[in-house]
Every structure is written in structure tokens, then in C-alpha cells.
């Protein structure tokens, strides 16, 4: 499929992991969407950036550590881009070295431009 024929869809992740199920089920959707050869990107804004924090260990929680999927989203699941909002990271005292995978860190204006290009925005 040519790039022009692909539909651009973006997951907009604004919730922290574990406190609610949104992030976990968002990942499940990202993984499935990857199989359909569309242009799927993922952005993390606000508390969503916590989902990418290194060193998550859910053993004491007794729940699955679903963050393991983030580092393989692009290579194994054909996700086009992972964007993280720069200002949200800074507000929370996080640096790119705190993140578990390589991402594209964009400021709000640049991320906004990306959002404008999307056919559908899926908030989680």
C-alpha cells in the first residue's frame, strides 16, 4: 500500500499506567492496529508520559507489566511513530534518559501539527 493510501490514526495517551486500565487497553489496540498496514502513531501527553518510565516492576502489584510492549511497537508491530510531549516530560522532572525506549520528543506546537494531519484521534 502506498503512503498516500494509508489512513493516519493517532492514539493520544493522557493517562498514567496501572491506576486505570486505559493505557493497558490502548497498547492492546496499538498492537492490533499494527497488523493492518496503516499509518498509526502514538503520542504521550500529560500523565501519559509516565507510561514510558524506565524500570516498571509490577511484581508486588500482582499485575502484568504491559510496558514491555513499548520498546517493540515500532519494530515488531509496525507503529509509525512514538511521540512524547517535551513540556509534559519537563513538568514531571523526566528526561529522555528516563524513558524505556527511543521516542521522538516534540514540543506542543510540533505535536499539534502532527495531530492536525490525522484522520482520527483516539484518546486514551
Amino acid at each position, binding site marked *: 500500500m502506498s503512503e498516500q493510501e494509508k489512513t493516519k490514526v493517532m492514539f493520544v495517551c493522557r493517562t498514567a499506567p496501572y491506576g486505570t486500565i486505559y493505557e493497558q487497553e490502548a497498547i492492546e*489496540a496499538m498492537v492490533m492496529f499494527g497488523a*493492518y498496514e496503516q499509518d*498509526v502513531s502514538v503520542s504521550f501527553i500529560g500523565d501519559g508520559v509516565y507510561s514510558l518510565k524506565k524500570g516498571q516492576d509490577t511484581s508486588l502489584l500482582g499485575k502484568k507489566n504491559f510496558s514491555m510492549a513499548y520498546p517493540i511497537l515500532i519494530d515488531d508491530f509496525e507503529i509509525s511513530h512514538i511521540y512524547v510531549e517535551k513540556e509534559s516530560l519537563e513538568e514531571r522532572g523526566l528526561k529522555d534518559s528516563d524513558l524505556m525506549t527511543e521516542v521522538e520528543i516534540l514540543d506542543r506546537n510540533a505535536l499539534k501539527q502532527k495531530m492536525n494531519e490525522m484522520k482520527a484521534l483516539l484518546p486514551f
Partner: protein
Amino acid sequence: MKLGVLIKEGPYMHQAIDTAYNFIIAAMEEGHEINGIFFYNDGVYNRCATLEPPRDERNIMKLLTELELKGVRLIVCVAAGKRRGIVNQTVCKVEEISGLGQLLELCITSDRTVTF
């Protein structure tokens, strides 16, 4: 216009389905096509067949079934449903259960996708 709808909340903890329902009715009255309603997260509970609200309360499950009779496609995510016990035996209509690919399909084939 073809409108896709994503419902992420259940029928009681949040107002989402009520806003969505009123939006959908208005859209249909204005001549727009509802391309499909996809139920994800706790949204799958809206299609639980054993819901039995008090008689003086709105029965969202029935209202949605009425939309279905008017030709609106309702899609309950199989994975989110299974996790919450919304399966073949408990969903309003077995045919409504489908995969997440249907959500992407909805995004592709709808002019707009609105999340509630």
C-alpha cells in the same frame, strides 16, 4: 457525513453513553450516517444483555438495540468484552462481538470518529 463513534465508558459510572446516544440521534435526524459504534474499555458493559435497571430509569441497552434495528452497526470488542464477562452468552447479540481491527476500519471508513 459518515460518523464513527467510540464508546469507552460503561452505562453508569460515566455520562459518556448518554451524551453519545443524544449525539447519535441528533446526527441521524440531520441526515448523517452512523457508520458504526465501537464499544471498548468499560464501554462493552453497555451491551450486556442481563442489565436490568429500575423501570423509571433509562434503559441504555434497549435504546442501543433500537438503533441497531434502524441499521446502526454495533461492535463490541472481543478482548475487552472477554475480560469483563461480556461474551457470547451475555452480550445482547452474538454478532456484535468483533475484533479491534473493526475500530481501525471505522476510523478508515468514517469521515469523522468521535470518542465518548
